């Protein structure tokens, strides 16, 4: 078993997927949270000057989804075949696309502009995306095959992050997606983490 050290800011954001997956697999890891000067010192040592990073026995991996995929493989949540893995990957990428569209709202400081962006996002961008995801999730509540994969876990993580600054009952009427959320939160390791994890702003 390799030794794992995850470094991110003190928030869920792009670090939470890794934490949820470690929890699902019952894998021990160091959950490092940095800010300010500590981050400025670390930044030039990272591959792209960004977080999260995952140190695996001294090898530094960056990029949230590359990290997520590596841990998913380690805990058996990456899909059972190459094709299943690809189906999981496409859900991950679809969520990334949605994330790109929601990030400007998170970053925007001007309250009026922020409200405008939120309105456009919730009325124009989010509904068709959730329609696609609803169709891609099975009636049993899995994006891939008939068991939990990191695609389901990332959907849960993304919803949690997004709802933090774009509040709303976004999954109302989405039968399959609500099942996905239930499958994730009823995973024993994840349920325990959700009770224990620090409360953070994002």
């Amino acid at each position, binding site marked *: 078993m390799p030794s794992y050290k995850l470094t991110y800011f003190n928030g869920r954001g792009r670090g939470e997927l890794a934490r949820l997956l470690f929890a699902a697999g019952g894998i021990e890891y160091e959950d490092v949270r940095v800010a300010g000067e500590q981050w400025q010192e670390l930044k030039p040592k990272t591959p792209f000057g960004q977080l999260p990073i995952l140190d695996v026995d001294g090898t530094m991996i*960056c990029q949230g989804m590359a990290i997520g995929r590596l841990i998913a493989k380690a805990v058996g949540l990456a899909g059972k075949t190459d094709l299943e893995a690809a189906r999981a*990957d*496409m859900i991950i990428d679809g969520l990334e696309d949605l994330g790109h569209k929601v990030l400007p709202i998170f970053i925007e400081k001007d309250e009026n502009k922020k409200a405008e962006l939120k309105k456009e996002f919730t009325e124009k961008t989010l509904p068709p995306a959730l329609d696609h995801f609803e169709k891609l999730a099975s009636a049993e509540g899995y994006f891939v095959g008939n068991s939990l994969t990191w695609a389901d876990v990332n959907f849960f993580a993304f919803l949690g992050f997004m709802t933090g600054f774009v509040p709303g009952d976004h999954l109302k009427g989405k039968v399959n997606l609500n099942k996905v959320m239930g499958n994730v939160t009823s995973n024993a390791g994840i349920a325990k983490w959700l009770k224990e994890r620090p409360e953070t702003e994002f």
Partner: protein
Amino acid sequence: GVHCGACRKMSVYELHYFNNRGRAEPARLLFAAAGLPYRDIRIQSEQWPEYKLKLPMHQVPVLEVDGTMICQSVAIARYVAKVTGHAGKTDLEQAKVDMLVDGIDDVMTKKGDYVWHEKDETRKMEKKTAFYETTLPQFLSHFEKLLRTNNGGDGFLVGEGLTHADAWFLCLADDILLDFPDIFSPYPKLAALVERIRTYPGIKEWLAKRPQTPF
């Protein structure tokens, strides 16, 4: 080479995209490098409104594998790379490849932002300038450094052979060289890598015969 010879060779691969290199080209390069046959479908714009309705996220590229549809260009290229043995040899190596691909994808998305999404001409030029004066040089210097950590940088991006990270890198290079032919002069190892990928068996032949499109 192709893994699991018999079962892989019998799969039917169909790649749906427009008549562009765009986000389908990394997969095309990987098919070419392996000599793996596939249907290179190029959709006409008139067909698009109806065509997209049968696609998982109403977007292209889509790779159909014996009828199963995979969308999202990065997911597609990774799958093709796994089939052809260009994904990386261990989980950790694959993660290194993945992180480089994600980095390239980030940069391509930033470029796409001003090329396709910014309508205001002044803002467009501002963003283009910022891209070429700040974003891209920062990215390329990280990348040159990362390349050099792999056996001195005289091979491919990760491990011993071509991976989908190299395929993506060539696509980015093709794109940025159109705007600035000298973009790689501060990054000699990256410049040499581009040539190395261009002359890779299979890819070399594809580059000579592929449809010539502006992007």
